[in-house]
C-alpha cells in the first residue's frame, strides 16, 4: 500500500509539473534600426524627408512609446543625374508643431528641399548621414509625364460611356496609378467653420446586409476609373448624415487626383495591404524597403489634379457651394 501511495504521489507531481504553462518569449534582443522616408513629388519643387529610429516598449503595444523617434541633426544629400551632369541638393533640417500630440509632445523634426523638381529621367540618389555616423542610401527614378497627356487627361474619349457614370481616362500615362476622388468642405460647428474632406468610394458593396465602401487600389494596367453617379450622391449625402441642417455645410470643391507612383513607392504601398482574417494569422510580415543600411522608402510620384464640377448635384442635396 505504501508503494502504491508513493507511486501515485510521484504521478500526481509529474502531472502537476507538466501541466504548468511554459512562458513563451515573443521578443528577442532589441534591434536598433534607422529609417529614411522620402517620396519625391515630381509635380513640385518642394520635397520632404524624415528620419526615425526603432524603439522598444514594455509589453506588446507600441503605441505606448512616448519617446519621439524622429531624428534631427542628420545630413541628407540628394544627387540627381540630369542631362547637365550630377546635381547635388542638401535637405534642410526643421521642425513643426504636431497636430496630434497624443503620443509625442515634442515638435516634429523633418527635412525639406525647396528647389528640386526632376524634369528628366535620370537617377535620383539619396544619402543620409546620421549624427552617429550611420549611413542610409537609396536610388530611384523620377516620374516624368508629358504635358500633352496631362492636358488631355479626362477630356479624351471616356470609356466605357454610360450616361449615369463619371469616367476618368488616362490613356497614354504609364506607371502605377492610384485615383482619388475628393470632396473638400467646411462645416459650421458652433459658429466656427471647420475644414473636412471626404474621399468618394469607388463603389459601395452590400455584403451580408452591411454597406461597405470600396476605394480604388493601385492599378498598373487599367487606364480608367469610372464612378456611378449614385455612388457620388450617396457619398455626398453621408457628409451630413442624420443632420437636417444642410445649410451648415459648404462644399468648397470636388476634384479627382491621379497619382502616378514609381515601382518602389507602389510596392511599398502594396506591401501594406493587409486584411482582416482571423484564420490567416501570418508568422511573418511584409515589410518592403529599398533603403540600404536601414528601412523606409525612397520613391517618386506625380499627381495630376482635375476639378470635377458637381454644382447641380451638391445644390440638390441642400448644401451650399463656394
Amino acid at each position, binding site marked *: 500500500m505504501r508503494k502504491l501511495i508513493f507511486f501515485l504521489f510521484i504521478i500526481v507531481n509529474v502531472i502537476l509539473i507538466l501541466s504548468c504553462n511554459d512562458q513563451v518569449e515573443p521578443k528577442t534582443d532589441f534591434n536598433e534600426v534607422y529609417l529614411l522616408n522620402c517620396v519625391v513629388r515630381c509635380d513640385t519643387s518642394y520635397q*520632404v524627408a524624415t528620419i526615425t529610429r526603432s524603439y522598444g516598449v514594455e509589453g506588446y503595444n507600441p503605441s505606448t512609446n512616448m519617446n519621439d523617434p524622429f531624428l534631427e541633426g542628420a545630413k541628407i544629400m540628394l544627387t540627381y543625374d540630369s542631362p547637365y551632369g550630377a546635381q547635388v541638393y542638401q535637405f534642410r533640417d526643421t521642425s513643426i508643431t504636431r497636430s496630434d500630440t497624443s503620443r509625442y509632445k515634442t515638435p516634429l523634426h523633418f527635412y525639406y528641399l525647396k528647389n528640386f523638381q526632376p524634369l528628366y529621367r535620370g537617377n535620383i540618389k539619396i544619402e543620409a548621414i546620421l549624427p552617429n555616423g550611420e549611413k542610409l542610401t537609396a536610388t530611384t527614378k523620377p516620374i516624368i509625364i508629358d504635358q500633352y497627356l496631362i492636358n488631355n487627361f479626362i477630356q479624351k474619349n471616356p470609356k466605357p460611356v454610360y450616361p449615369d457614370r463619371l469616367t476618368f481616362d488616362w490613356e497614354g500615362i504609364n506607371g502605377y496609378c492610384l485615383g482619388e476622388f475628393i470632396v473638400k468642405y467646411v462645416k459650421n460647428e458652433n459658429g466656427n467653420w471647420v475644414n473636412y474632406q471626404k474621399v468618394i468610394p469607388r463603389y459601395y458593396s452590400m455584403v451580408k446586409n452591411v454597406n461597405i465602401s470600396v476605394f480604388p487600389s493601385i492599378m498598373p494596367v487599367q487606364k480608367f476609373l469610372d464612378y456611378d453617379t449614385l455612388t457620388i450622391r450617396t457619398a455626398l449625402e453621408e457628409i451630413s448624415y442624420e443632420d437636417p441642417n444642410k445649410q451648415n455645410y459648404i462644399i468648397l470643391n470636388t476634384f479627382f487626383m491621379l497619382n502616378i507612383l514609381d515601382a518602389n513607392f507602389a510596392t511599398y504601398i502594396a506591401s501594406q495591404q493587409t486584411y482582416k482574417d482571423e484564420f490567416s494569422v501570418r508568422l511573418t510580415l511584409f515589410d518592403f524597403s529599398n533603403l540600404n543600411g536601414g528601412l523606409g522608402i525612397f520613391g517618386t510620384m506625380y499627381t495630376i489634379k482635375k476639378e470635377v464640377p458637381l454644382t447641380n448635384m451638391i445644390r440638390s442635396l441642400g448644401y451650399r457651394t463656394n
Partner: protein
Amino acid sequence: MSRSKITITIFILIISLVNITSHSNAQDKGTLRGFIADSLSGEALPYANVYIKELNRGANTDFRGYFIIASLPSSKLTVTISYVGYKSQQLTVRIEPNKVYDVKARLAPTNIQLRTIETTGERVAKENDTDLSLQRITIRDLENLPKGIELDIFRVLQTMPGVQTGGDVSARFYVRGSASNENLILLDNTPIYNPFHAMGILSAIDPDMISSLEFYKGGFPVEYTGRLSSVLKINTKNGNKNSISGKAGLSLLTAKLFLEGPFPGGSFILGGRKNYSDVVLKKFRNDNSIPSDFYDIFAKINIADDNFMKDAKFSLSTFFSSDKVMNENPLLEDFQWKNNTLEFNYFQLSDTPLFYQVDISLSSFSGERIPNESGSKYMKNEFNEYSMHADFNYVYDSKDVLAGGIKITEVYSYQTLTNNIGQESTIDLKGVSLSAYLKYQWLRNSFIGSDIGIRAHGTRLAGGGGATFIVEPRVNFTLRLIPEIALKGSWGLFMQDLVTISDENETILIFEPWVITPLYLPPPTAIHYIAGIEINPAPNLSFDIEGYYKIMHNLAIVNDKKFFINDPDLIPGSGEAYGLEFQTKYQLHPFNFTVSYSWMKSLRVVRGITYPPRFDSRNNVNLTLETDLGSGWSASAMWVYTSGLPFTQITGYYDKLTPIQIGDNPFLLNSYSPFTMLSATNIGRLPDYHRLDLSLSKRIQINNFKMSIDLSVLNVYDRKNLFYFRRDTGERVNMLPFFPSVNLKVEL
C-alpha cells in the same frame, strides 16, 4: 550517352541476368497462393499470417488479402493461418511441381469477450522483407487507441517516430522534415489532394471505410512516384459479401451512417458523414467560432465472380468531400473546397504466379477563397487529374519477384491569384506525364532481400513546352544477420511534378492550391539515404532504429515578395533533413506498450538564407499503452511530447509611413503608425507541446448486433499548449484544453 540512359541500360542488364538465374533454379518446386477473408462478411483480411510448419516458412497477406509462397517442395504441408481477433485455421495442402495450389480460407472472428492475440509465423514472414520505413496498419490496430474527438487516421500517423504534427488544430502531417504537400495520399490507387475537413482539424477520410493503411516514411519503392517525402496508401473496404449490414456512429462533432451488403457477383459499401455542431471546433481556438460545415461520402462496388471471369476482381469506387467556412461577418472571408475521386480497378490472377491490374482514376479538387470585404485576395484553384496505370507482379520459383508497370497521367490545373497590388493573374496549365517502372526483388535467400527498381519519367509532356525527363532509381535491402537482427538500407531519387501555392507562414492552411510545376521552375527532387536496424530479442519485444538523411532541390516556395505581375508566384528553394528514430514494442498480455522517440533537424534555404521551417520539431516522444481488460472492455493511454516549433520573434517597433491618401496630403509629416520589426526567420522556439489522452471502451455483441462506446479524455492534465500568440497583444491562443469526449457506434 547520358547518365539516365546508362542507368537504365545497366538496370536492364542486371534484370536479364537475374532472370536467367531465376529460371535455372526452378526445379520441381510448387507454389502456394491464397486469399484470406472474414467468414462473416467475406471482407479480405490484410496482413494475415500464413505459416508452413514443416518448413518454418511463411508469408503475410497483402492489403487485398492475397498471399503467395513460391519455391515449395513437392509434399504435403500443414499451413496455419492466423489473424488478430480471429480463430486460427490449419489446412493441409499437397504441393505439386510447377503448379500453383490455390487456397481460399475464411477465418471466424473470435467473440469480443474472448479476443486473443496471435502472431504465429509473423517473424518468419519478415525474414527478408525490404520494408524499411514502412508501417502497415489495419483498422483493428487502431481500435484501441484513444480516439480523440473521433478516430482519425492522420492523427494516428502522428504517433509514429519521424512524423510531426501540425498541432491539435491541424491533422496535416510532416514526415522527416518535409512539408505536408510532399506526402502522397492515395485512396486505393487514386491520389487525393486536400483530404481535410474543418480547416484541417480533421481528416476527410472516414476510418469506417478503411481496411488497412500502408505508410512509407521514406525510401518508398518505385511503383510510387510523384512526391518527395512519403506515401500513405489507404486501402478501402470491399463491403459485406454475405448479408446486408449497417453501421451508425455519433461523436460530438459528426454523425455517420454506413451500409454494406452483397451485390450480384460481389459486394457494395456506401457511407457518409456530416458534421452537426461547432461546439467541439470552438475548443480548438480559445472558444472562437469556426463556422465550418462539411460532409463526405464514399461508395464502392466490387465484383469478383468466377462465373463471369475466373480469378478476376473489378471494383468501382467514388469519394466526395465538401467543406464550407462561411462567416456571418462580411469583413471576414469565406472558403469552400471539394474533393472528388472516381476509380475503376481490374485485378487479375493468372494460372501462373502472376497477377496484374489496370486502374483508371479521376481525382479532382476545387477550392475557393471568397474575400467578401475582408480586403483579402480572391483565389480559386481547380485541379483535375486523369490517370491510367497497368501493373504486373510475377513470382519466380526462386522466390524472386519481378514487377513493372506503366502510368499515364493528364493533369489540368487552374489557379487564379490576385497579387499585392491588386493585379489578377492566372496559372492555367495542362500537362501529361508518362512513366514506366521495373522492379526486381531478390528474395531467394532467407537472410538477404533486396529490391532494385527504376522509373523513367517524362513529365510536362504537353502544355506549352518544358518537358522534363527524370530517372528515379531506388534500392532497398535487408540483411538478416541472425534471426533476431536485421540490417536495412535504402537509397533513392524522388521527384514531384505537382506543387502547391501555399504559404507555410500562415498558421492555418485552410487548403493548399495545387498546380503543375510552372515552366520557369524545374520539378522538385529529393534523394533519400536511410539505414536501419531491426532487433527482435523475444517474440513479444521489438526494437527498430532508423537514421536518415534527405536532401531536396528546387523546392517550390511561395514568393512572399511578389509585388508585381511579372514577379513569379513561386521561387526555388532547397533543403535538407536528417534524423534518428527509435521505436520499441512490448507485448505482455493483456498489455501492449509502445515507446518511440525521434530526433530530427530540417533546414530550408531560400534566397540564400537558411532557416528551420515551421514544422522543424527536434525531439518527439510517443508513449502508448493499450490493454484488453476482458469482457469487451479495453483501455488505452497515449502521451505525446514534441519540442517547441520555431517561430519568428519581435526585435522592436518603429513608426512606419502608412499613407492612406496621398494626392492631397502631406503624408510624410502625418501618416505614421507603429509597426512590428521581426528577427531572422524562425530563430525563436515556442514552448514544448505535450498531452496525455486516456480512453475507455466497451464493446457489446449480441448475435449480429454490435455496439461500442468509447469514452476519451483529451489533454488530461489540461496542458496549455500554445497555438500562437498575437503579436499586437501578446495574447496566447492555446490549443485543445482538457476535453472529455464520447463516441458511439452501432452495427447491425
